[in-house]
């Protein structure tokens, strides 16, 4: 909201400069986003254009002869399209400074002398308007300094928190200033000069839904003339960021700005049956608002109706059928208090927010403010648009609202603010805000809050009022007594710290990505997981919570590849989400994901480079698990790994718990993200990494006796995995120290559906040198077990 400093000064004595005022307002809770100073430069005067001639050397320029208050007319070269004889305009005379680098000099423009420059509003920093030369009112005196008519001013752009609807007006801000500076707000209302007659003879008001409309005031002004507003009013409205329309509309806007009270002016002749009825719409009722749009209403929407039809959507916007037009003679003024929730509902549903609805939603003054607003409006209309005010005003107020009473204990002020503020001081601070002491018992005091302060409900609310006026900067900071408390960091967050370190040492970059994804992405990556769907998504791209981190990391890789950042390696610690139905909270898991792409070791002139592959991914996972204290990692059947992996994939288990999965991303998945290079990805469950038994190392003596090494070649069915063979071999004897596959062969000689796996084996006894006989005996058992359990034969 825009607050002109000059207007504010009319309402309350302020003797500080705008920047200081801004800081003071901020300290009590009114944030000032910006201050725009308007300062008409010295040397700019009012000039009257007497005649216009063509420039001899330039088509677009003209030579204006102006009366600048001197004895002789001056000649000014001008390029603006809107100059005409008789017009008054600002003239920057020679020597005036229009900006830091702009001093007006006596100049020859295309060979013609110019004694200054006619200015637009923007050139004078009055507004952003640069469409032509600024036009001044006809009653200004040529030769006078423009400063006389445009004194230095500043416009403060303020931001009001949603609880302080009462500050959405000049009066509201003035009240805050008065409280801050210990002044009183000057009276700004006007008493209407009524002529004869009684409004009750002209119109009746009936409130059907008094819950949504607790109070409705009306006045009638007859015989007005619709015209432009006087300059002072237009300027004020413009300074606050509104557009002048005509005197009646401008006056209602002026009242809105001054009192924060939205008003509506109806053309009285278009109100059928001389009656106003405030009631709800019917479902599906159509109504054309004054912006020409047809609105589809429902039974929640409150309407202002006449005897035949709706004439306005209450508190939101008037109707096209009854608004003020150039021919309006009699004006019916509406000034009401609508229930904030009712207006918010309609405004939200119609997606129609107006200056009026914005204020009604936050709560206006249902008491004195309402009366001051309508009386002042009527009187201004009488003065500025002529006409006569019919005697009396309608005041439909079925259930008068009573001010809230709140108990405040001074001990609580001390307890919450941490500073001792005397009883008298509390009473005077609150009194400055219109919060009156009305009684009290024992130590407690009872206060009554003004009706316009909808935010004051409980004791703490009053303590806040005391605190902000006393000044939070005046409360000395205290150092709380140090206490010994056990510092508990969740195990998963300790593991996360370890993961970060390990990954960073491996040269991986940590990413943080959005946790939301699109239905399309989710269905592509995890077609079988039921997602958590957002009720009110920001966009379809963020309509669901992610079920895997794969999509986010693929996007990051793609983003970097598009920027020619190659050889990407990232990790992210984040949550995945899966729905467990509406009755239960979703399944949220803390996971770590790793993605690698391109070269893991970049090629150089001495080194061919090492592209990423499955073994690099495995070594990263092993390293992570080891540092997190999780037991040896085992890679299992890829069958249960996520669908986005291709053939080369595996589940990851620490101990007996499946911790995650890893592998090469399917090419078509990569292509969906516009990635053409191979991508390897792993995702591990952090809780499972922690849940795995911690491997507390126990020293085993270094071997003192030599080992015996043997190789085997088993012919097995195609689907048998080498890990199964190795596990089987290791289980045969405690003396098997190490076993690992080293070759796979498939060929016609073996027959269809068979393959041969070659394994190397190391046997060692801790207490003696093994004899060949002992080794042969173990090998015999291995061959026998493999044959019996898996039908494997030795390849000859």
């Amino acid at each position: 909201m825009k607050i002109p400093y000059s207007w504010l000064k009319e309402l309350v004595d302020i003797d500080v400069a705008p920047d200081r005022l801004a800081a003071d307002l901020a300290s009590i809770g009114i944030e000032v986003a910006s201050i725009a100073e308007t300062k008409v430069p010295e040397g700019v005067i009012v000039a009257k254009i007497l005649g216009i001639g063509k420039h001899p050397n330039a088509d677009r320029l003209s030579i204006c002869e102006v009366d600048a208050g001197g004895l002789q007319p001056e000649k000014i070269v001008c390029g603006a399209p809107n100059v005409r004889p008789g017009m008054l305009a600002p003239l920057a005379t020679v020597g005036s400074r229009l900006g830091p680098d702009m001093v007006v000099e006596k100049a020859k423009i295309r060979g013609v002398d110019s004694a200054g420059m006619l200015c637009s509003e923007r050139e004078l920093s009055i507004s952003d308007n640069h469409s032509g030369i600024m036009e001044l009112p006809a009653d200004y005196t040529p030769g006078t300094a423009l400063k006389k008519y445009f004194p230095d001013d500043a416009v403060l752009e303020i931001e009001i928190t949603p609880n302080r609807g009462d500050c959405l007006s000049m009066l509201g801000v003035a009240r805050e200033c008065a409280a801050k500076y210990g002044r009183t707000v000057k009276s700004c209302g006007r008493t209407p000069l009524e002529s004869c007659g009684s409004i009750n003879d002209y119109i009746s008001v009936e409130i059907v839904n008094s819950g949504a409309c607790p109070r409705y005031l009306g006045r009638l002004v007859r015989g007005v003339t619709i015209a432009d507003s006087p300059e002072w009013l237009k300027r004020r409205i413009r300074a606050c960021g509104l557009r002048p329309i005509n005197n009646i509309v401008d006056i209602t806007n002026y009242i809105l700005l001054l009192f924060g009270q939205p008003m509506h002016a109806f053309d009285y002749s278009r109100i059928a049956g001389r009656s106003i009825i405030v009631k709800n719409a019917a479902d599906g009722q159509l109504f054309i608002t004054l912006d020409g749009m047809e609105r589809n209403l429902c039974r929640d929407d409150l309407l202002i109706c006449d005897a035949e039809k709706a004439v306005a959507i209450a508190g939101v916007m008037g109707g096209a059928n009854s608004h003020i037009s150039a021919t309006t003679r009699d004006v019916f003024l509406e000034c009401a208090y609508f229930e904030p929730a009712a207006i918010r509902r309609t405004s939200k549903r119609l997606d129609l927010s107006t200056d009026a609805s914005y204020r009604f939603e936050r709560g206006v003054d249902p008491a004195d403010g309402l009366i001051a607003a309508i009386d002042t409006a009527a009187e201004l209309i009488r003065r500025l648009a002529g006409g006569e005010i019919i005697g009396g005003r309608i005041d439909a107020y079925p259930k008068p609202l009573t001010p809230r009473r709140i108990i405040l204990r001074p001990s609580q002020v001390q307890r919450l603010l941490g500073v001792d503020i005397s009883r008298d001081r509390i009473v005077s601070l609150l009194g400055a805000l219109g919060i009156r002491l009305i009684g009290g018992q024992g130590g407690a005091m009872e206060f009554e809050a003004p009706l316009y302060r909808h935010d004051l409900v409980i004791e703490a609310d009053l303590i806040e009022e005391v605190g902000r006026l006393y000044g939070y900067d005046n409360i000395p900071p205290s150092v709380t007594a140090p206490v010994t408390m056990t510092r508990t960091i969740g195990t998963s967050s300790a593991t996360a710290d370890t993961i970060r370190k390990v990954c960073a040492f491996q040269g991986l970059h940590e990413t943080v990505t959005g946790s939301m994804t699109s239905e399309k992405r989710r269905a592509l990556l995890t077609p079988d997981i039921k997602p958590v769907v957002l009720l009110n998504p920001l966009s379809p791209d963020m309509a669901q919570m992610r079920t895997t981190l794969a999509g986010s990391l693929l996007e990051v890789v793609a983003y970097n590849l598009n920027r020619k950042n190659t050889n990407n390696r990232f990790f992210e610690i984040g949550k995945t989400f899966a729905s467990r139905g509406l009755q239960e909270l979703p399944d949220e898991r803390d996971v770590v994901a790793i993605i690698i792409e391109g070269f893991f070791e970049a090629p150089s002139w001495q080194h061919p480079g090492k592209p990423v592959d499955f073994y690099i991914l495995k070594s990263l996972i092993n390293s992570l698990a080891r540092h997190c204290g999780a037991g040896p990692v085992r890679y299992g059947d890829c069958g249960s790994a996520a669908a986005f992996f291709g053939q080369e994939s595996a589940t990851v288990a620490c101990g007996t718990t499946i911790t995650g999965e890893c592998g090469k991303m399917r090419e078509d998945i990569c292509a969906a993200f516009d990635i053409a290079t191979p991508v390897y990805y792993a995702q591990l469950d952090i809780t499972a990494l922690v849940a795995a038994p911690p491997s507390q190392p126990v020293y085993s003596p270094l071997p003192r006796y030599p080992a015996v090494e043997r190789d085997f070649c088993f012919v097995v069915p195609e689907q048998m995995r080498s890990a199964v063979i190795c596990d089987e071999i290791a289980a045969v004897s405690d003396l098997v120290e190490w076993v690992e596959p080293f070759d796979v062969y498939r060929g016609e000689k073996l027959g269809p559906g068979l393959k041969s796996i070659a394994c190397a084996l190391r046997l060692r006894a801790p207490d003696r040198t093994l004899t060949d006989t002992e080794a042969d005996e173990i090998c015999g058992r291995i061959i026998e077990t493999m044959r019996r359990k898996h039908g494997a034969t030795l390849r000859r």
Partner: protein
Amino acid sequence: MDALALGRYLREAREAKELTLEDAERTLRIRRRVLEAFELGDFNVIDASPVQIRVMKKQKPPIRCIMPGKVYRHEEISARSYCMFTQVEGLFIDENVSMADLKGTLLAFAQRFFSEKARIKIRSSFFPFTEPSIEADVECFVCGGAGCSVCKHSGWLEILGAGMVHPRVLAAGGIDKEKYTGFAFGMGVERIAMLKYRIDDIRLFFENDVRFLQQF
């Protein structure tokens, strides 16, 4: 069910019981503003922190904790705002905890994090879950308060929102509001990082361009 349909369902259910929003507020101990927001399908106003309530329900005072995490809001994405950010919340509940303690804590933070000589300024503000509510500014560490482009020539940088825990929040957490008081604060990690490292676009944090990540 979309947001508006859900809202309508909730309202009709309430109206069928002939309860006003105020009645519902009393029975459910959920702020009227929030109930209303649900009924209107207007989720923009819902910003209370469920983590704090959970801590209060699990643990008896004294409570002193820090809660970092991702938070989401319905916001247009621009250089200055993103629909997601990392929030660090703090909660301190004990007997006789006051605004003076909050100030001391924030001052200690500013002096450790920005500079030993850092000063802070407290402004009145509004948050639904604290009363009184404040915002804290730290003296600009770039210009030392003299005014520069980082602090937009004000000499101060806004760093966080805070306040004394609202009695209703205490009650919702099962804590006796006559015995205990507390303060809470919340700050955006990205925002503080932006100030500290003079990053001018919050989206950089979430785009994950390697050339950005490499700088830290």
